[in-house]
């Protein structure tokens, strides 16, 4: 021990740490050591440096921060002695990684050491460079490394070769510099150099096509010869592993042959013999031999078609598959997945064995086998394989059920021969693994059920029976609740019995029991509860005889801690209670969900659902023909006039609110941009669990209305909402509106209190242009008048650059919105509309008056027209 050093020795520190009984004790020891090391670092005494770093490395391995030692590594590397450099480089590789800026400081030392006279120092530098160099360092030091590939000592050559693989991985542009040097390494006799040389060539082939071509032309035969020599070589104790001479070299040579033969028939042809020899002669009773065989099979399957070799390869895999060693079976499954692409039949022969592997106690093997089975499934064997898998699902580990059920669902969806079978299989999966099924899977099931109208009765009965037994499977409960809500009458009346069914007697109250159970069970999540609430509303109309009981259940939810549940409970209660005459049409059966739309959306939204995971984001389509309006129409079974009227009638407030959410989301869904909510679940939308608060609701219903209005080409959305209905639509809308009001409540129409409507006027008319004004007033502000100006071209020529200007006296304020267009088609074939807002500060005393100027281009000539409007109706 050095008499000048202070502090504990490395060995003592390790002992002290090992002697610690608790984590706290260990932390205390480490903290003390770190403090000592820090102090010594500050003294900057070169004698202790390497011991300090060794201690730090040990501390680092225990997981404590050691960044303060990084500079010590650099100092040690820069010192002249070999022992210091050795530990310095070790510390560098251990404590730093390529992303740390400190690493740049070492570039210069590395460069010097790469040119050092001692070959072991050069070796240390190459090793460090190969393990942690960054792209910049790779660029800076590539010439040195390239030179060292030709170094006289094989120890340096092999290190330089591997260092070069790292460099070309980091900076692929440098690849061509190394091609010649790499090719020269292939002629080596020293195994270490040969192995690393082959590795470098392989790496170059992967990243550079020209290099690949070069090696293919110049080296293929050489590589084949080397492989032949090594395969036929006599026993060499230095390289022998379980009777095989240097399996590592074997494997690398086979791997290089793979890239050389892939996509090149001539090269593939050359290597056929040696591959056949390796495949048949290699001993397969030890791992080393199997490793070589495995690599050989992979090469055979990658190179250009030589079918006799492939038979050989498949046979080897078959042998692997029946091996008792789990490792061998694992790689066999892995490789069969690749083999399936060119010889499906051969792999199908092993189907039974593969299915057995799905039930293996080893998770890795199970996973591989399951992936393979999914690839093996086709139309012919789907029923049998699915049955096997579902049988296994019943007894499999809990943590495997998620993967397994997902795969079964995938298979069933992809290959199902008929809907009945699909529904049956999905029900089985939901019964066994309903907890693990992803949202998009059960959404898809509902879509299919909805489309299979002849199976509605069968499905709802099967679900009813299943949910009684497997009530803890969340998704099963959801599907069951939805179906009972929709098709509850079919359940009770045994409608649409299939031959295979046993008749069951279910009373109305039994069906409600199931829903009540779902809504009251404490571990049901909010989606399930929400779906149950909707189902109850629907059943209240399907089962009028027990609607009182249903009402009681709904009323209980008024106390739900979920705000949305509470609100919906109150609304639904009010529907059940007070609006019996519209209830039946309100809760009619859902229209058939459109499968095509669903599948498109599902495909589109899948990545999103994968990334967020927690929130269900796949939506059920509602088969809308008319985008924005349809879902509402479907739900309410009213016609669109009623919807337009609904917002302006006060009596429908709660209904509007109820629907507003739905409207908002569905209009944004059908919007061209497919906004952020595009993926929201429609089932959720109906309930609006987790959708916007009322403030947003109203905003989105305005949105919706404007879309609807553009369709109808009547008037601005705001007008409709905030002012008396404009005269020209009042006639069409009012009938519907009154219908609705009749049905809803006796409350009077608000129209009466909104003040009178005003007739529209022709504000201006010339030989070529006609301007009409229509008026509306927001009820809360009598001073303000909204004017909609409509421009009609009476001439046979189109007006372009159309611009309308207006001026008013001082007691009026005028605000012009942008016009709908600046081109006015000829002969009244279309019009431009523009909204004006006039505020009359002397309302009641003076009436409106306005001057206007209209400019436009007719056949390229500017035309200007002027006029004054004084025939405004009184009272504006």
């Amino acid at each position, binding site marked *: 021990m050095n008499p000048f050093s202070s502090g504990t020795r490395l060995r003592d520190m390790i002992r002290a740490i090992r002697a610690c009984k608790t984590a706290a004790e260990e932390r205390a020891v480490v903290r003390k050591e770190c403090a000592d090391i820090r102090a010594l670092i500050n003294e900057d005494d070169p004698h202790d440096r390497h011991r300090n770093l060794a201690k730090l490395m040990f501390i680092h391995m225990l997981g404590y*921060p050691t960044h303060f030692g990084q500079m010590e590594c650099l100092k040690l590397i820069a010192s002249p002695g070999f022992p210091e450099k050795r530990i310095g480089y070790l510390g560098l590789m251990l404590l730093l*990684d390529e992303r740390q800026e400190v690493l740049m400081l070492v570039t210069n030392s590395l460069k010097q050491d790469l040119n050092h006279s001692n070959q072991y120092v050069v070796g240390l530098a190459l090793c460090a460079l190969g393990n942690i160099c960054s792209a910049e360092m790779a660029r800076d030091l590539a010439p040195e490394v390239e030179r060292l590939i030709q170094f006289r000592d094989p120890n340096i050559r092999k290190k330089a070769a591997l260092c070069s693989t790292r460099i070309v991985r980091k900076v692929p542009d440098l690849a061509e510099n190394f091609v010649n040097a790499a090719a020269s390494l292939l002629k080596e006799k020293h195994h270490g150099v040969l192995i690393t040389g082959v590795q470098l060539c392989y790496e170059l082939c992967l990243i550079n096509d020209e290099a690949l071509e070069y090696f293919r032309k110049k080296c293929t035969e050489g590589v084949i010869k080397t492989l032949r020599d090594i395969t036929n070589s006599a026993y060499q104790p*230095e390289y022998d592993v379980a009777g095989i001479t240097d399996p590592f070299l074997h494997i690398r040579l086979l791997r290089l042959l793979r890239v050389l033969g892939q996509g090149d028939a001539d090269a593939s042809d050359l290597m056929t013999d040696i591959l056949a020899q390796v495949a048949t002669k290699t001993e397969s009773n030890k791992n080393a031999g199997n490793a070589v065989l495995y690599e050989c099979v992979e090469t055979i399957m990658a190179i250009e078609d030589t079918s006799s070799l492939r038979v050989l390869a498949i046979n080897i895999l078959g042998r692997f598959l029946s091996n008792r060693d789990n490792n061998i079976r694992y790689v066999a499954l892995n490789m069969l997945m690749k083999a399936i692409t060119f010889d499906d039949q051969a792999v199908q022969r092993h189907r039974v064995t593969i299915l057995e592997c799905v039930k293996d106690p080893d998770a890795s093997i199970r996973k591989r086998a399951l992936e393979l089975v999914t690839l093996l499934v086709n139309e012919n064997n789907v029923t049998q394989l699915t049955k096997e898998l579902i049988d296994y699902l019943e007894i499999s580990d809990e943590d495997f059920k998620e993967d397994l059920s997902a795969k079964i669902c995938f298979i069933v969806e992809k290959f199902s021969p008929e809907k009945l079978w699909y529904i049956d299989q999905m029900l089985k999966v939901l019964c066994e693994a309903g907890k693990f099924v992803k949202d998009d899977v059960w959404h898809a099931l509902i879509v299919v059920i909805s489309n299979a109208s002849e199976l509605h009765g069968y499905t709802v009965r099967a679900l009813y029976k299943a949910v009684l037994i497997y009530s803890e499977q969340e998704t099963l409960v959801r599907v069951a609740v939805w179906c009972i809500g929709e098709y509850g009458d079919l359940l009770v009346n045994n409608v649409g019995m299939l031959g295979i069914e046993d008749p069951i007697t279910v009373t109305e109250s039994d069906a409600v029991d199931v829903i009540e159970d779902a809504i009251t069970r404490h571990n049901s999540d909010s989606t399930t509860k929400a779906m149950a609430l909707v189902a109850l509303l629907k059943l209240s109309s399907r089962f009028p005889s027990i609607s009182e009981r249903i009402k009681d259940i709904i009323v209980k939810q008024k106390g739900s801690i979920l705000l949305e549940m509470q609100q919906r409970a109150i609304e639904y209660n009010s529907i059940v209670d007070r609006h019996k005459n519209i209830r039946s049409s309100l809760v009619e059966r859902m229209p058939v969900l459109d499968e095509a739309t669903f599948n498109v959306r599902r495909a589109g939204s899948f990545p999103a659902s994968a990334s967020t995971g927690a929130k269900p984001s796949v939506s059920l389509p509602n088969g809308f023909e008319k985008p924005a309006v349809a879902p509402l129409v479907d739900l309410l079974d009213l016609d669109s006039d009623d919807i337009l009227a609904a917002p302006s009638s006060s009596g429908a407030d709660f209904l509007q609110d109820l629907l507003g959410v739905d409207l908002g989301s569905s209009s944004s869904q059908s919007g061209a941009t497919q906004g952020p909510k595009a993926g929201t679940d429609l089932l959720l939308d109906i309930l609006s669990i987790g959708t916007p608060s009322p403030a947003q609701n109203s905003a989105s219903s305005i949105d919706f209305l404007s879309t609807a209005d553009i369709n109808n080409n009547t008037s601005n959305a705001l007008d409709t909402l905030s002012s008396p209905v404009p005269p020209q639509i009042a006639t069409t809308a009012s009938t519907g509106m009154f219908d609705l009001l009749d049905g809803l409540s006796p409350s009077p129409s608000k129209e009466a209190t909104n003040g009178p409507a005003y007739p529209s006027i022709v504000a201006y008319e010339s030989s070529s242009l006609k301007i009409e004004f229509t008026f509306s007033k927001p009820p809360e502000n009598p001073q303000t008048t909204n004017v909609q100006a409509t421009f009609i071209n009476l001439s046979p020529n189109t007006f372009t650059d159309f611009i309308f200007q207006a001026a008013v006296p001082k007691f009026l304020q005028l605000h012009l919105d942008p016009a709908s267009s600046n081109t006015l088609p000829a002969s009244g074939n279309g019009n431009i509309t523009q909204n004006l807002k006039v505020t009359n500060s002397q309302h009641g005393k003076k009436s409106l008056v306005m001057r206007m100027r209209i400019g436009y281009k007719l056949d390229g000539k500017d035309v200007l027209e002027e006029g004054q409007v004084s025939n405004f109706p009184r009272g504006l």
Partner: protein
Amino acid sequence: MIHFVLLVSRQGKVRLTKWYSPYTQKERSKVIRELSGVILNRGPKLCNFIEWRGYKVVYKRYASLYFCMCIDEADNELEVLEIIHHYVEILDRYFGSVCELDLIFNFHKAYYILDELLIAGELQESSKKTVARIISAQDQLVEAAKEEASSISNIIAQATK
């Protein structure tokens, strides 16, 4: 390529870590925690491969130590088992029937040997003899330097008596 090498004791203590791909300190400790949890809990008769975050981890238990190597999905798992065995045999020859304590107190030696076996996550040498020869040559260099240093310090010590 091998992305990292991990030696974990049966108690979950880390005995050696070597990273050939960039991982931050945080990621490193997370990886170690995650993997040792999985590997230590696996039954004895199961296969030696774990599929993990799109990679494969090949592990093998020798006495109380688990040797783990993380490789790409397309790599040859069986060969990696041989590489692990190769490493263990070299350690065994170097220490003379190696045990966990050897690797604790001489952890740096274990790293030196690994550095003669793997660079850039690739195998460097298939001959155990060659590795042993290079390691002992370097050990001798260190010994020579130490002797020189102690003789100098003896001279200084005597001069200052």
